[in-house]
């Protein structure tokens, strides 16, 4: 099998860049050492253009374009740090921050500082910002759903659907401010089509869908990411050989993820790989 790679030449922030045909602007920026904020994009998902936080300016294009989804074209001229781009990214972050809780979207905090985003300026005493405010949904021992944190990036829907799991247990229901990620007829998760692979949790950028173990530790003030170590190993529950990243704190496993760039899992796991580790540290073994 021979694949002929055609190169495309473009300019990003005045810098000449050459990448293979089909590369996204986002990836081209990365290859040129230019970082781009993303929210709805992930290595292992199809771009959905939902969040607009990665927009760039393309010469000749009327509107800003989402860099995650737009493929490079020959002789394209891209600006990632123009006033227009900075202004747009800042406002997207402010709008999100004014309506939902981004406290666990750790990547975004840095970008908010970078662009001087101040969500509070939309929250005036005489005109308070409308915020999502719901009790977290806790319907089983594995997941929690905290819609106060949901930015409707669609990543969980994609991971549950045809980007990975093909279970299609969740979709967006409702319109406007009432839009929510929902199970069929908003049924409780254990009664839904959900098979608890946790791939929605794996891709959630804001902690809106979360491992219950993490949620409980956070609630108890015991979640200390700075002290956590990550060890890559292989799952024990079948012969596929899925890479697991064991997140440990105080010599205990507290969370399991999988590397998005590994050929076996592409970052996705099943219920056993994601949650089955608990037998390693039951009271009877400790």
């Amino acid at each position: 099998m021979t694949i002929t790679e055609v190169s495309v030449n473009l300019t990003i922030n005045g810098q000449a860049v050459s990448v293979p045909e089909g590369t996204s602007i986002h990836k081209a920026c990365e290859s040129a050492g230019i970082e781009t904020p993303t929210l709805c994009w992930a290595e292992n998902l199809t771009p959905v253009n939902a969040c607009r936080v990665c927009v760039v300016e393309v010469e000749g294009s009327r509107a800003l374009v989402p860099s995650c989804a737009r493929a490079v074209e020959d002789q394209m001229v891209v600006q990632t740090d123009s006033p227009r781009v900075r202004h747009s990214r800042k406002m997207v972050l402010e709008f999100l921050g004014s309506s939902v809780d981004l406290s666990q979207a750790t990547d975004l905090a840095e970008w908010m500082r970078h662009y001087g985003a101040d969500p509070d300026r939309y929250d005036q005493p005489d005109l308070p910002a409308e915020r999502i405010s719901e009790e977290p949904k806790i319907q089983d021992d594995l997941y929690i759903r905290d819609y106060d944190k949901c930015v409707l990036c669609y990543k969980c829907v994609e991971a549950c659907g045809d980007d990975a799991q093909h279970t299609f247990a969740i979709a967006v229901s409702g319109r406007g401010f009432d839009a929510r990620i929902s199970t069929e007829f908003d049924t409780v998760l254990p009664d839904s089509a959900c098979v608890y692979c946790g791939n929605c949790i794996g891709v959630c950028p804001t902690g809106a869908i979360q491992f219950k173990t993490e949620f409980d530790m956070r609630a108890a003030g015991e979640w200390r990411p700075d002290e956590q170590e990550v060890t890559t190993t292989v799952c024990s529950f079948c012969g596929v050989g899925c890479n697991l990243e064991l997140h440990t704190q105080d010599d205990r496993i507290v969370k399991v993820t999988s590397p998005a760039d590994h050929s076996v899992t592409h970052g996705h796991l099943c219920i056993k790989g994601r949650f089955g580790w608990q037998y390693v540290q039951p009271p009877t073994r400790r």
Partner: protein
Amino acid sequence: MFGAGGGTSSYTEVEQTDVVLLWGSNAREAHPIYFHHLLKGLDNGARMYAVDPRRTSSAKFADAWLGLNVGTDIALANAVGREIIAAGLHDTDFIAHSTQGFDDYEAAVEQYTLDRAEEITGVPAHAIAEMAHDYASADTAQILWTLGITEHHNAVENVLSLCNLALLTGHVGRWGSGLVPLRGQNNVQGGGDMGALPNKFPGFQDVEDPVSLAKFETAYNMSLPDKPGLHLTLMFEAMEQGAIKGLYVIGENPADSEADVAHARKLLDGLDILVVQDILMTRTAEMADVVLPAAVGWAESEGTVTSSERRVQRVRAAVPPPGEARQDTDIIGDLAKRLGVDWGDPTPEDLWDELRSLSPMHAGMSWDRLESEGGLQWPCMDEDDPGSIFLHGWLWADDLEGRDPAPFSVCHHEGPKEQLSDEFPLRLTTGRALDSYNTGVQSGGYASPIRYGDGIDMNPADARQLGICDGDRVRMCSPRGSVETCVRIQPDIPRGLTFTTFHFPELVDINQLTNPEWDLRSGTAEFKAAAVRIERMASTHVNNPVPDVDSATEFADG
């Protein structure tokens, strides 16, 4: 197959293949992340045929479900082979150049006409023909299987009957085409590779081959047995005959997992000494005279495991083992010392390098490469070898790389050992459920919201005939024993068949019922086919009406 015990293809290949025969495998639940690769293939336009007595969650993604009667795989495979030949769709050049024994095979499958196969298997003749034509005409095609093929008294013949189809069509030894047995445990492939088979040294080198024997005798400076040892099933026979009086069990729970388990427990009980090395107190460990607490292989130990695509990958210690638990290798080393042999204090890398020095197919896999390259696929003969994406490319070489052509195997339909009877009129088959694993020792440790638990799947029509409602308590009996459980009415189960998982022996000790008849070559017992009777237990109706759906077979043509 053809000399090396491993799946021929890589996971990425199933994403690009044209036709998939998923045969005796519910990969959607038993190998969910492999199934993701398969789903990519379906999204890319591959057609899938699911061959399984049950309309499984995997079969629901298939273009066609061939719901064959339990244990009729060879009749189906032979009919597919016959139809391919009859339609002139076999690869005559490949057969002439790369195979041997075709004439005998052709003669043997002649009797498996589509009509006869329909009679034996219950699969409509047109569905068999469609699968045969599609498989043979595809540019690339793969056959995937698991325990639905191997947990029968004629396991090896089942596998060979599928290999015949690949030889007939040239669907092996090249990108996208292959034969893929999916492994049920994270190192069942690696265990075999490392020589944890009664007839092999590491790297599938035969103990009866004088050259291999001499190599290992020289390396270890001692004489080694030149005859195969015993596999698990033969060990139990030897225990029965009193030839084995002591057993050292490492990471296995035969007191729950053996077929006809009550008998197996009796034999374990009768041993002079039983030593169990495990991470948790399994039922087998509870019977032991000595328990050696072990570290968890994938979270508390350093080493390697090998996957279903022959990929050797590193496992690493993330947490320290609790209490007195120790690394398996340390325990074995100390035991050897007490027995008078000092192997020193080797690191996992030292042990790996010893393997590389003796197993040519692992020679190129340095510890550093395993770390930096995300695993390597055997064979990997030297440090410049990138490893092997697929096996048996030699079948397509002009000179077959000096090897003998691959043999067709003549296999005939026999059916399950235990025939249905008036006394035991229903078929029991066992298998896996998504959230659980083996005897539940490990998967019992977390609170899954989707547990299968205590239950037996049954077709609505069979249930109605027995006056059984969904949720009713029943007694299920086979010639070997009986268990109590409750019925789950399941339209995806064909009439005459019942199914349960083996994950909950405390709730349903299902292996009291399973058939210990075993395959002479692999030693695998016929877990997939017991004959049973189901009786409703008095006054246990829970008032759930039986849905008015007759049988899964109405989906068969869909």
